[in-house]
């Protein structure tokens, strides 16, 4: 080293090598970003939240990002609860997502956990359910543990997926071949897109109207699988160690009787541990939100924007009554949330107009 340092020519060579390594490393990072699927906007957006700026998080599957409108709850009550929802997000990952969130938001007051995806059977579980979450997580031991735990659960449930851990640890191994498939020039941008609406998802489906079937409710229960009990107990044990209030939620949809029985068994287990469960798929909660089964759904499993407004309105009111939020927030945080709220309103109005629908002030539409 000393020899290199004292020789000008060698010093120059060493500098060139170093710069080359840095450029190559930069290229690698770029490629890793470019080829990873761009469908983890919620978590990418979460990472960009100012430290200690959130009052809570709402974790779960599409039953989160299609239902809870964070900016509406902020407008109405000032609470800042971010959606960390990804499609079919497995419940086994919730513990690790809470850990991830606490790294930057240790002063949150509430953690909301949707448990719908617990109802998925082994053959319905897909690789993407895991990778949609873990691809977006920052490299850390927490991410590794999340992958290990999820694969372990999927294996026990008999999910027909690849169990090669390296594909989950290093998703580029899996996604680099996208170039021959669904890769487009727009994917070449070096940074992942972030959710502009605090995790809430707005798409063409937001304005779709589906005439849904109201389920008939039951109090019966079926036995949960060993693996499901194991991950639920692990999650409950972890939640007991938290300073935050943890509320389990089951968002409303056209639930089948079989799913409801399994859901009832899960809820029973959670309640036994002393946690609150807001089960909107129960007789007791029927009609509380005021959802219209003919106009407020985009499909049998998800509410559209109109349904989300009603759902958020009810849940935010509940949280306002049951959780003590602090009202102080920095100007920059307020500005960020105000901007997101405004952007969502503009986007929604435009989407409704594009769909040939008019959005009334109270959130009701006129269906042509």
């Amino acid at each position, binding site marked *: 080293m000393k020899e290199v340092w004292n020789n000008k020519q060698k010093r120059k*060579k060493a500098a*060139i*090598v170093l710069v*080359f390594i840095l*450029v*190559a490393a930069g*290229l*690698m990072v770029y*490629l890793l970003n470019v*080829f990873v*699927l761009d*469908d983890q906007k919620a978590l990418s957006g979460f990472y960009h939240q100012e430290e200690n700026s959130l009052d809570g998080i709402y974790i779960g599957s*599409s039953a989160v990002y299609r239902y809870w409108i964070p900016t509406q709850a902020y407008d109405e009550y000032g609470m800042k609860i971010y959606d960390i929802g990804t*499609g*079919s997000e497995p419940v086994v990952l919730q513990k690790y997502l809470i850990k991830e969130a606490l790294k930057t938001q240790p002063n949150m007051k509430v953690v909301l956990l949707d448990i719908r995806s617990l109802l998925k059977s082994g053959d319905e579980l*897909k*690789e*993407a359910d895991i990778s*949609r979450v873990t691809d977006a997580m920052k490299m850390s031991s927490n991410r590794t543990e999340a992958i290990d735990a999820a694969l372990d659960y999927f294996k026990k449930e008999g999910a027909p997926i*690849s169990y*090669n851990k*390296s*594909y989950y640890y290093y998703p*580029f*191994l*899996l*996604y*680099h*071949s*996208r*170039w*021959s*498939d*669904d890769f487009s020039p727009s994917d070449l941008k070096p940074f992942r897109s972030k959710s502009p609406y605090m995790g809430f998802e707005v798409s063409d*489906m937001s304005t779709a109207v589906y005439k849904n079937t109201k389920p008939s409710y039951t109090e019966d229960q079926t036995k949960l699988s060993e693996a499901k009990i194991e991950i639920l107990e692990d999650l409950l044990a972890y939640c007991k160690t938290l300073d935050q209030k943890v509320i389990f939620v089951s968002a409303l949809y056209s639930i089948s009787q079989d799913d409801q029985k399994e859901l009832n068994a899960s809820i029973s287990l959670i309640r036994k541990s002393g946690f609150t469960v807001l089960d909107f798929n129960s007789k007791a909660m029927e009609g509380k939100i005021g959802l219209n089964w003919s106009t407020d759904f985009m499909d049998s499993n998800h509410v559209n924007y109109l349904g989300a407004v009603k759902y958020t309105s009810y849940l935010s009111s509940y949280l306002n009554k049951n959780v003590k939020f602090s009202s102080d927030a920095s100007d920059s945080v307020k500005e960020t949330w105000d901007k997101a709220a405004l952007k969502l309103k503009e986007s929604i109005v435009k989407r409704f107009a594009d769909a040939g629908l008019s959005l009334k002030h109270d959130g009701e539409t006129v269906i042509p």
Partner: protein
Amino acid sequence: MSFISATFIVFFMAVILLYYLTPLKYRWVLLLIASYGFYLSSGVKVMLFLLFTTAVVYGGARWMESVRDHAKSKKAAKKTNKRILLLEALVNFGILFVLKYYNFIADNLNGLIGMFKYDFSMPLVNLILPLGISFYTFQAVGYSIDVYRGKIKAETNFLQFALFLSFFPQMTQGPIFRYGDLAPQLKEGHKFSLTNLKFGLELVLWGYFKKLVIADAASTAVTNVFGRYDTFDGMQVLIGMVLYAIQIYADFSGGIDMTRGIAQAMGINLVDNFRQPYFGNSVAEYWRRWHMSMTNWMRDYVFFPLTFAHFSTKIGKWGRHHLKTIGKQLPAYIPTFVTFMLIGIWHGAGWGFIAFGLYNSLIIIFSMALTPAFDKCKSVLHIPEEAFWWRCFQIIRTFAIMVYGKTLTRAASVHDALAMMKATLHLDFGMFFANMKSELIAVGLHGRQWVVLTAAILIFFTVSVFREKGVHIREAVSRKPLPVRWVLILGLLTAVLVFGVYGEGYSSSSFIYRNY
């Protein structure tokens, strides 16, 4: 531990780093530890075979040397040493033969016995095939022959000899080295050289490009066509056959480039195993350029000894007396036939490999026999030997011959290979070009994959043309301005990372839900 694995990349980078951190004097020890560590990753049992061969060949060579030093006469020493060499070769080739060919022979003999309705069958056994056994056995026997001939002194240091037979970069697919070319370089500790490191890593990267971007991409279409050739038309079968010829070359030479690159990064220069074989203007020339370490081994230890053997001289005399022109060439026919049959069998146990050996030997023998007639034709037709178009014709003709020949080694059976060759006799160009897109996609690659594969093959071809003209590519690149060099290297790296076939195949269909 496959070359195409993150574990191997980490392993060889660590070896290179440790190599330069180890004192010069002990660098060969590090290589020995790394080599046996690498070999051990393929199993303990297989390592015993390597150790056995090492011990037998080391002991045999020392024995021969001792006999030579203490014998009363040279003649007596030669006689004893011949016996030692034969014993050694018998043991080593015996192991190779049993492990690689026993089941094939037993299976065929059982079939033959069954035809005569005898109640006897040879048992088929589940034998392990140690990594690189064909390579290290030939390397070991070559060493013994060289010691026997007095070309080299027997190695006295057992561990250094063990390194010569186990040097990790060459264990997967050779090349087969001569002791004099490799061992001194392994023993010597090489000082760090940025140029060696740079050139070495560039060669490794080029090897990965050939393997992952060309060979493994072509493999999809090749597997598809060879697997169900009867569902494709003549043009598609021909495309599959041509792609296989390209695949096997890119695969093999890519692996050799990685081997040479890793060695060069540590200052060890290994000779190339290929010299643009598909630019050969005859089948004989092709074999002088393809897998040169193996063909040179066959030339020096099989072809020449057979050519100059007593019986060949006798046959030559007889031939000259009875058969005129052809008779003069007769002593070359038998060694050629034997050599190419051995080359075919060396490649694997199967009738396809035997047929491949036969195919090559007959083509070379016929071309030798017909050379006077060809020369006459060329003279009558005024074909200028050095004309560019004539050379192109020769190259294309040789390539076509090799495409058909290699089909014998890739098809499931000789029957299938012949059926594929027959299919290519019915080429409907009109139909193919009218429906080119769908015809190509049906072969097994999508539009973008064809574009990338074609571009990669063209890059490979262009580099080969430059090499054929005597251009040393890496040296030429190193003389370019820094930005050009970096763009080329980083471009190659990007191509390997993005277009390389590795990891689990991505399928957008498994991510439909993300669009929801």
